[in-house]
Structure formats: C-alpha cells, structure tokens
C-alpha cells in the first residue's frame, strides 16, 4: 500500500486519513470484546478498571469470578452450559441432515419452483425473531411441547436450517458435474457416487453450515425466551446472561463472556481452516 513517489500532497493526506479511518473502524469492531477479558480477572466486584489493574499489580487480578461461575450456587451456569450444548448438538444434527438433503435437491437443474421454495426455506432467517418466537411458541403449546426439551430442539432446528441450506447450496454451485458423470460412466452406482465423490467434496460446506447451525442454537435467546417459559431446568447460557444482565452487570457474567469469546475464537479458526481446505480442493490456490 506504499504510495508512489510522485503522489501529490493532497492525495497523500487523503491516503493517510483513509488509513486512520480504517484503523478506527477496526478498533471500533474489535475493542469492545477485549474490554471484557481483563475485567473478568478483576479482584473487586465492580466492573471497572481499578487503579491496581491499571498499574498491573498482581493482587488486583484474581480468578474468583471463574470460581464463582463454576462453583457458585446462585447461578446455575453448569445446567445452562449442559443444556446449551445439548440443544445445540441435537438441533445441529437435525438442521444439518434436513438442510443438506434439501440443498442437494435445490441445486439440481431440474428443481421445480426453485425460487419460491428457496424463499420459504430461508424465511426463518429473515423474519424477525420476535415473530418466529411467538409463532413457534403458540404451535408448540398446542402440541404440548412448549417448555420441553424436544420443543426447544425443534425450534432451534427451524432457525438453523436456513444457514445450512445457504452454505451447502453455495458449495454445490461451484460443483463440477462432470466429476459425477465420469464416476457413473465408469460404472459407479448413484449411491456410491454420492458417498465416494459428492459428499467428500461438499463436506467443508456441510461442516461450515453445521457450525452456523450450532452457533445459531448456542447463541439463541429470543425464541427460547418464549419457548422455555421460565423453567430453570431448561435454561441456557444466553438465557442466564439475559437474566443476569437485566438485574445487574456482575463480574461473573464477564467471566462467562470471556469463555464465550474463547469459544468463538475456536470457531473462527475452524472456519478459516475449512475455507482454506475447500479452496485447495477446488484448485484455487490458498496463500
């Protein structure tokens, strides 16, 4: 991004102010996340940087809020974490299977009413969550599934499928049909071709869709507010955070938030590896 020597002064000024603006926006994006991390190691129970912390004195830092998160009796973070993982696990499986199969149909050239069906399948992602939440709640209540484990999983499958459909159809749109034709011309059955050729090639897309579905369920708060109906045994991490944040901003929440940031960093690394892998498979050079 170095400027050529002959650049005029005003363009030089413009260029550097552009870089300053960009830096400011990047800071605006990322800094709020990094404010939380040191505060979770605070030894005091107030959410601010104490003088000791700013002077980097070791006694100003502690792990007491992490202990409170794990052993504290007041906050059921343990149940919440277990539930969150369960809901996310089962709804990811449901959403990934349904979404991948549907995406295979939708990517076919012969699919009838493609636009219309696609719009219907994507709608849970577009329609405001408050509307989805209440509609799903009313229908689950009618079936007697409101505030039950299967009910919440069904709700999360609905919210997760659009992401799987989108990522898998995107992967399939770059798919070279001649590969499967070559397989069948060499005598492979359609089932064999699918499992031996198509599936391995679209796996990165499926995994990334599954990750989206997982995160959607793991993060989901609006729909579960309606569907869980205040049952403490069905609570999730986002629900606990929501309740906590409405009462008081406690350092324990900062500790939980830090753990979630670590989790999202892991997800980011996985998606990055997947992207590189899929680019390599398709012969696009990854740097």
């Amino acid at each position, binding site marked *: *991004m170095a400027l050529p020597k002959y650049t005029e002064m005003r363009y030089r000024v413009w260029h550097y102010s552009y870089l300053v*603006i*960009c830096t400011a*926006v*990047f800071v*605006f994006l*990322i800094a*709020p*996340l990094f404010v*939380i991390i040191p505060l979770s190691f605070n030894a005091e129970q*107030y*959410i*601010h940087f104490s003088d000791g912390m700013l002077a980097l004195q070791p006694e100003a830092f502690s792990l007491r809020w992490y202990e409170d998160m794990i052993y504290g009796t007041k906050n059921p973070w343990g149940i919440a974490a277990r539930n969150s993982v369960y809901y996310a696990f089962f709804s990811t499986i449901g959403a990934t299977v349904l979404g991948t*199969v*549907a995406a295979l*149909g*939708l990517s*076919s050239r*012969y*699919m*009838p009413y493609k636009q219309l069906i*696609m*719009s*219907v*399948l*994507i*709608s849970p992602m*577009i*329609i*405001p*969550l*408050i*509307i*989805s939440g*209440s509609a*799903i709640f009313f*229908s689950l209540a009618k079936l007697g599934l409101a505030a039950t484990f299967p009910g919440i999983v069904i709700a999360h*499958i609905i919210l997760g499928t659009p992401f799987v459909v989108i*990522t898998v159809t995107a992967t399939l*749109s770059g798919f070279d049909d001649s590969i499967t034709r070559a397989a069948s011309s060499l005598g492979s059955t359609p089932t064999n071709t699918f499992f031996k050729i198509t599936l391995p090639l679209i796996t990165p897309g499926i995994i990334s869709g599954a990750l989206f579905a997982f995160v959607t369920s*793991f*993060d989901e708060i*609006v729909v579960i507010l*309606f569907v869980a109906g205040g049952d403490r045994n069905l609570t999730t991490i*986002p629900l606990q*955070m*929501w309740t906590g*944040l*409405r009462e008081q*901003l406690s350092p324990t929440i900062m500790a939980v*938030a830090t753990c*979630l*940031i670590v989790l*999202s*960093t892991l*997800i*980011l690394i996985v*998606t*990055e590896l997947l992207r590189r892998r899929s680019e390599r498979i398709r012969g696009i050079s990854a*740097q």
Partner: protein
Amino acid sequence: MTAEIRTSDGELLSVKLKKVERRRRTTAFLLAAPLLFFIVFAYVIPIFQMLGRSIDNAEMNSFLTETHEVMQTWDGSEMPGEDVTSTFYYELKTAVENKYHGKIATRLNYEKGGFTSLIKKTSRKLKNFDENANFLDQFIDVHKKWGDIEYWLALKRGTDAYHFRKYLTTFDYEQKFDGSIERIPEKLRINVTLWLRTIFVAVGVTFCCFILAYPISHLLSVLPTRYSNLLMICVLLPFWTSLLVRTSSWMVLLQKQGVLNDTLVSLGFVADESRLELMYNMTGTFIAMTQILLPFMVLPLYSVMKTISPSLMRAATSMGATPFHAFRKIYFPLTYAGISAGSILVFVLAIGYYITPALVGGAKGILISNRIAYHMQQSLDWSLATAMATVLLIAVLVVYWLYNKIVGIDNMRLG
C-alpha cells in the same frame, strides 16, 4: 421426412428424454420435500395462525353467542331492551358456572376500561338476581356502570367474531362507539413514536454501517491476502461472538460509571459530575447496534470488491481522470450489488432487533419488537401484539422481496 430416433430399447428418444427429466424433477423435489414440509408445518402455518389472532375474536363470540345475535337488532341509540339484558344474564350465568367469566372480563376490558371489575362484581351478585323482574334495573343496581350505554355498546362490539380494531391501535387510532375513527389522546400515543423510531434506527444504523464498512472492505480487498486475512479477524471474531457478549461489552463501555466515561474523566475531557449519558437512550441503542451489525455489511461488500480488477481504476487514471473522479464513475458503481445486499441484510436485521435495545436502550431506546414482546408476555393483549407483528412482518417481507429482486436469494453468501 426425418427418421424417428429411438433408444436401444426401442422407445422414442423424445419420449424417453421427457421421462428422464420428469424423474429428475421428482428426485430433486423429493430431496427438498422433508425440509419444505417441516418448515411449512412447523413454521409458516404457525405464523399465519398466530397472525390470525390479530382479527380473531371467535372465542369471545362463542362465550356470548346469543347475546351477540340478539344485539344485532339493537341499534344502540338508547339503552338495550329486556331481550338483550335477559340473554346476557343467562349467558353470563353459564359463564360463571363454567368459570370462564374471567376471560370475558379481560377481553371486554380491551374494549372499554373498567369492564374487569364490572364483570367480576356482577358475576358475584348474579345469584341474587330475580329472574322475573326487570334485568336492566337489576344490572344497574349491582353496578351503576351498567346504566352507561357505552358499556352495552362495548359488549356488542366485543362479541363480534372478528374485528380489525387492533390495527387502528397499532397506529394510535381508535374507533369510537358511533363508528368514527379518531386518534387516541396525545398522552397515550406510543406506537407511532415507536414505529418512527424503529424506522429511524434501522435506516440510521444501515447508513452508519455503510459509511463505516465501505473503507474497511476496500482496504481488505486491496491488501495482500496475508495482511487481509489477519485484519479479517477483526470482522469475523465479532461476527461469531455471542450477541449477549457483545451487548454486555457495550453495557460495560457505555455505563455512567463505565469504561468510556472513566477514560474521558481521567483524560479531563469531561468533568466527573457531568458524565455522558450514553446508555438507556437512543445513543446507546444506535452505537451498539451499529457495531453488532457491521460485519453483515462488510462481508457482502468485501466479496463484491474482491472481484473488481485494480486495472480498471488504473486505466481510468491513466486516461486523465482524477482519483476521485475515477472512484465516483468507475469503482463506486461496480460496488452497487454489494451495497444493496449489505444494506438490505442490515436493515432487515435492525428493524426486528429486540435484545440489544431492551438491555442498552432503556425506556427511551426501545423499538417496536420490544413493544410486541411486552404485549405478548406482560399485558397479554395478544390481538394487539399480533396486529403489530403483522405490520412488522409485511414491512420485512417487502424488503425481502426487494432483496430477491435486486440480489437474488441464490446469491446469498455467509462468512
């Protein structure tokens, strides 16, 4: 005359081709069918059923069917006759016996305030009624409100099988008992304010996201991959991080005793006693939502900008265009697709935002979604909540339709 081409099993080729194509169409449809049926039955139909609640009053109608029928002959210009009052007496008696008079009271209270206590008191006194005497006089004896014709008019209106009055309430209008439509008293108007605020925030956040996302998407698209991958983390890490984590970090930053105010005070920009009010108002909602939705603008913009060849700008400048002119005439028009995709995505997400305004916005920063949730969960006026939800849904679907027209659903990309 051309010879008919046949396949090896002697079938006409054109017929065979049609057969194969039909089979492929069926296969494709059958693959999509499980999810399609799941979404339609578990999601689309429930949404329509729920929206039906905004006009549906069938339950109330079934509670007081006969009263409603008898009232059709009453013109409402003077107090109702004995035919109406006696029918109402007998139906209310059945309601008390079957214990659904509470529901009647709540529903009628939406039509006119004071009905809850009126029905409850009347229900308690029903057993003292003399079934051979004048019913209207006895109703008035129980509670003088029965002498007010408006309560009887409200009863007539409140037992219609369906009505559209909640849509008037959605926009702060009401229908008077004489049928005229008027705005509600000024101090009760809240919904129009919320609609305008929601649109203002959605448009404003979209615009801010665009202004902030454009330069960084450009930088990401022109930097060598090594550096842009690193900087991309700044966009993707917030994108993958829980919404509640990001909202709580804004609460930490924006509070009156928060990090931002602390920093400003210690730097001497702001006096300790005049700390900035950044939270529990529109400012908080606006700042937090812009940061949270920014990745949704950056990602589509970046993917479009990545495809624009740098030689185009070089060609323009080499032919004498100033960099600004070249940008305006060449580069900017090429990014329209990314701008529209990102803007529509951010707008649709912003217009239905609920969590962040509820936590950061306080009373002054809530949006229409928060009002819908309030009517769903606290006031329990589901008809009004669903009427508002219908209006919101129509707004979102119009934008969704535009998105489909401009960008195309097939081109939606994530991450």
